[in-house]
């Protein structure tokens, strides 16, 4: 069987499969879907650096392996540094790295491993200009260790260490804007992407491949286990995150901003739409939702302004 070649060519998402069944991700896992798309876009001549995170497990414990590419598991905070070492070694050995047919050096790290403990190594990686792609799969908390808040956890979210009680509220701080920190390094290419929009994600992965230097993609990846959401709603939630402008999709390319989604012409959907399927937000009061909405509005206006001025 298999897909005929003439049909394959017309597919917006490559038919090639390098991420196999039998992996150990939870049902409805956004990250595993993301990893599958990355492999579809880059193929097996890819060397992944994976820090301690959900994907350590998803990829399979020894002697099992669920994906067909080089995989290098490393310590939590080292993704950026290890990728740099791999890229330098490949170059020293004479390999073509990145570009249309080069070896792809890819960092695949969670939000905790990127926004918090791995931020320094990420900064060093971006600053040194390695030819590699860093992908932060953002499920907005430390999920692998049992749902603890990270710098990427949004306001009002329940996690096991922002449980909410008589004295203290849930997560009190807004989501750390890692993408803005990345852009502050004036990288050649940075983008946000979502598992709900795979064509857009793959297009960005391919663009990241072509542009020399470090690229960064922040991938919105729902986690039903940690978000207390139905496992069949992951894609819908990810879509609503974009449509409410909670997680807008945009690109920063050589100093220019471009908003992909949602439309800048009309009002985004209210934030309640994004919150509705997720048990982690169920303790929020009306005024908390308003605080989150205000933040979304502010960030969205800021982004629109940036796209207007530096578009």
């Amino acid at each position, binding site marked *: 069987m298999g897909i005929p070649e003439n049909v394959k060519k017309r597919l917006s998402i490559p038919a090639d499969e390098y991420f196999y069944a039998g992996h150990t991700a939870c049902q409805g896992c956004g990250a595993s879907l993301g990893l599958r798309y990355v492999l579809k876009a880059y193929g*097996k*001549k890819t*060397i992944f*650096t994976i820090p301690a995170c959900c994907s*350590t*497990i998803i*990829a*399979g*414990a*020894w*002697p099992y*392996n669920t994906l*067909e*590419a*080089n*995989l*290098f*598991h*490393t*310590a939590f*905070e*080292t993704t*950026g*540094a*290890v*990728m*740099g*070492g*791999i890229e*330098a*070694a*490949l*170059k*020293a*050995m004479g*390999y073509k790295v990145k570009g249309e047919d080069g*070896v792809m050096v890819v960092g695949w790290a969670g939000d905790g491993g990127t926004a918090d403990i791995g931020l*320094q*190594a990420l*900064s*060093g990686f971006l*600053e*040194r200009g390695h030819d590699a792609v860093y992908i932060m799969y953002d499920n907005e908390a430390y999920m692998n260790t049992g749902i603890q808040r990270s710098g990427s956890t949004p306001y009002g979210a329940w996690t096991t260490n922002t449980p909410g009680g008589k004295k203290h509220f849930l997560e009190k701080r807004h989501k750390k804007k890692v993408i803005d920190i990345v852009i502050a390094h004036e990288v050649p290419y940075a983008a946000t992407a979502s598992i709900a929009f795979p064509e857009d994600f793959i297009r960005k992965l391919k663009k990241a491949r072509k542009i020399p230097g470090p690229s960064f993609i922040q991938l919105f990846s729902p986690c039903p286990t940690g978000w207390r959401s139905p496992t069949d709603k992951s894609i819908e939630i990810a879509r609503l995150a974009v449509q409410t402008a909670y997680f807008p999709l945009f690109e920063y390319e050589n100093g220019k901003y471009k908003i992909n989604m949602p439309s800048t012409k009309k009002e985004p959907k209210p934030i309640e739409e994004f919150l509705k399927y997720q048990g982690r937000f169920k303790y929020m009061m009306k005024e908390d939702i308003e605080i989150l909405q205000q933040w979304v509005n502010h960030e969205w206006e800021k982004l629109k302004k940036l796209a207007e001025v530096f578009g």
Partner: protein
Amino acid sequence: MPIRTVMKANEAAAWAAKLAKPKVIAAFPITPSTLVPEKISEFVANGELEAEFIKVESEHSAISACVGASAAGVRTFTATASQGLALMHEVLFIAAGMRLPIVIAVGNRSLSAPINIWNDWQDTISERDTGWLQFYAENNQEALDLILIAFKVAENEKVLLPTMVGFDAFILTHTVEPVEIPDQELVDEFLGEYNPKYAYLDPEKPITQGTLAFPAHYMEARYTVWEANENAKKVIDEVFAEFEKKFGRKYSKIEEYRTDDAEIVFVTMGSLAGTVKEYVDYLREKGIKAGAAKLTVYRPFPAEEVRELAGKAKVIALLEKNITFSIGGALFQDFSRALINQKEKPILVDFILGLGGRDVTFKDLDEALEISRKALAGEEFEEVNWIGLRKEIL
């Protein structure tokens, strides 16, 4: 022809790296090792060394980048000291566990607090359980030679373990001494190219490295690190012999000095060995039967050679620039382990001295001698002694 010149140990380490031709170097500045990457930067900038030099933002990233590069299959090198090595701690285990033959040059220095940039061995000694091999240089020539030897041992397929070479901060790192730079051709012959035989990241043949191992498999992986350490003992002897044949300088795991009829043998490492040998000469002139021994190889621990040495002495006085609190020095623990089940064994007396760059003088060694002689005479003595303490400021 080899070049005879003068240089600091830091420069000697950089020269060793240049001669070994690593393809990737990642380093972060720290006193007293900063000059090593500085000098290497010059070599790279002048095209004298073809290598990718990654200027990382921390030692943690330096060793992480080396891990990535080594896993991709190239020879890698870095240098650090003290807090920098401590910051690498976590990744040192990973490098050994993944069997990556990275070499680190360490300008041995104390650890904070208080802040202190001077010499002792607490930095490398504190990493003795990571699985890394550890060599200690007495002088700048040894620093250069041992780094070359380190690459050769580390990359041996029976070993495949990362290796650190320590040389004392300032006493060696910043002191100019005569050094012979070996011939590049001979070094090329000695080291050869590094071509990993087993696991490395080949873009054409995907593998997984560093994966999760459940309790059913983890212990076996750790055992292979033990086994590799054991294998290294023989490999080191072979490499020392080959080095001597090629370059004419002789190394052994433990170097003995006037031990044959010695009653008291002072054992130490690093540059202190020079002082101790001179002290032994001075004692011999006075008719005191003293000898000295220096550990060039600390990991793998040369237990067999220690037992041999122990057979020659009534008292072994361990002179150590490190401390395990509530126990004593690391050598004291390791010597105890090597000798505990021997029928005949010397008395071990431990001396903690020279911490944080305090100079070790004959006066300090006199203090150690006095306690050692008490032990020899069967009198009561303290097992662990802090030498040269300024009691007036305590």
